[in-house]
């Protein structure tokens, strides 16, 4: 059966409180999930009182400030700080998003920050995404064509064919969508999840790809694809404004279309 309660060693306790410097006027509380594999203790939530006048506007600015000036043990992934690398995907105020694109002022009250839900945690805000990456690899996310490319140029597409890929090539593989999906929480070992299915449809829809049928064959499975229950958390949460639910719907339509 599905586990509806957290295992004993995952229940979250109270952590430390890092108070702001005296005289700070614009203070906001950041309540951040902490867990380290180095000791045997349960995860806790530490509270950091941060003077917003001293930092930039985004949640990532606060995290970097904490790491640099308050508590260097806080662990999180970040790289580009402009929403193109997908590293700083985490659960902020109950919503999976990118810390670098989330303005602090959009959140009322304390800001709770947790790692992406229902993934194994490596440390603090760093989830283990190996399984999700392997699922992406399993759908062969690259061009498969038996026709040789023109010797002197690239493979060509019409403007209309190229437009088919809009809304899909923009995916940065942050996995905010997959980890927001209850179907992925319950059946993530077999359901591929919205991020991987969006990538799969990106290649099915590509006019230069010649293996759409093989790709549809590989996805025609009660759980790999059809564990999608059109809950649409994926589309709701995507920090890039993409629509994985629509891509999944298109795959289902194509599978139906080829039956008749």
């Amino acid at each position: 059966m599905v586990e509806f309660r957290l295992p004993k060693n995952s229940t979250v306790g109270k952590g430390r409180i890092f108070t702001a410097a005296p005289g700070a006027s614009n203070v906001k509380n950041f309540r951040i999930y902490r867990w380290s594999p180095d000791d045997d203790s349960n995860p806790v939530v530490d509270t950091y009182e941060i003077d917003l006048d001293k930092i930039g506007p985004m949640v990532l600015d606060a995290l970097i400030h904490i790491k640099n000036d308050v508590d260097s043990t806080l662990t999180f992934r970040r790289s580009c700080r402009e929403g193109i690398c997908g590293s700083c995907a985490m659960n902020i105020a109950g919503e999976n998003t990118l810390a670098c694109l989330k303005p602090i002022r959009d959140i009322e009250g304390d800001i709770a920050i947790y790692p992406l839900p229902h993934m194994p945690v490596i440390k603090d805000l760093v989830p283990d995404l190996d399984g999700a990456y392997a699922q992406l690899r399993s759908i062969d996310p690259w061009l498969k064509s038996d026709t040789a490319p023109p010797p002197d140029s690239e493979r060509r597409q019409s403007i209309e064919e190229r437009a088919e890929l809009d809304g899909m090539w923009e995916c940065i593989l942050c996995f905010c969508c997959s980890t927001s999906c209850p179907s992925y929480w319950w059946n993530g070992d077999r359901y591929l999840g919205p991020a991987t299915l969006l990538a799969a449809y990106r290649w099915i829809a590509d006019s230069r790809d010649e293996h759409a049928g093989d790709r549809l064959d590989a996805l025609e499975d009660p759980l790999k694809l059809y564990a999608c229950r059109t809950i649409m958390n994926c589309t709701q949460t995507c920090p890039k404004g993409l629509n994985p639910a629509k891509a999944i719907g298109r795959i289902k339509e194509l599978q139906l279309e080829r039956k008749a």
Partner: protein
Amino acid sequence: MSNPKKPHVTVMRSQLSRARGLGSGQAGVGHWWAERASAVALVPLSGWFVIQVFRLAGASQPEVAKWGARPFNTTMMLSLVILTFYHTQLGLQVIIDDYVHGKAHLPAGLLMKGIVFLLGLFGAVSVLKLALAGSSRSTIAAG
């Protein structure tokens, strides 16, 4: 077991092997489509049924029996009963797929299908009894 603190690892299979699993089951699209098609078909059937229930409200037993013996009503009622329980079974299977894992999955699905089948059959037999009993009684009365 040189280091007792080191946990025993039971799964060393690669992540890609786990992701590929047993490959595609080559099923799912039929179930998905049947769910939607039966749901759409149940919209007019259920609407018709609700209207009939209001029309028959307060009617006497012979009046209802007469209503149930009309071939059109029998056809509509049988369609409604069969599709309702077929759709129920499809939907409950989804819940079992989501929440029951491992060895319990197959027996849970079979048990559910058995119960829904019997309930549906009971409904169908009831509709048929209403449809056929009325005519047989009138035959006996006439004879």
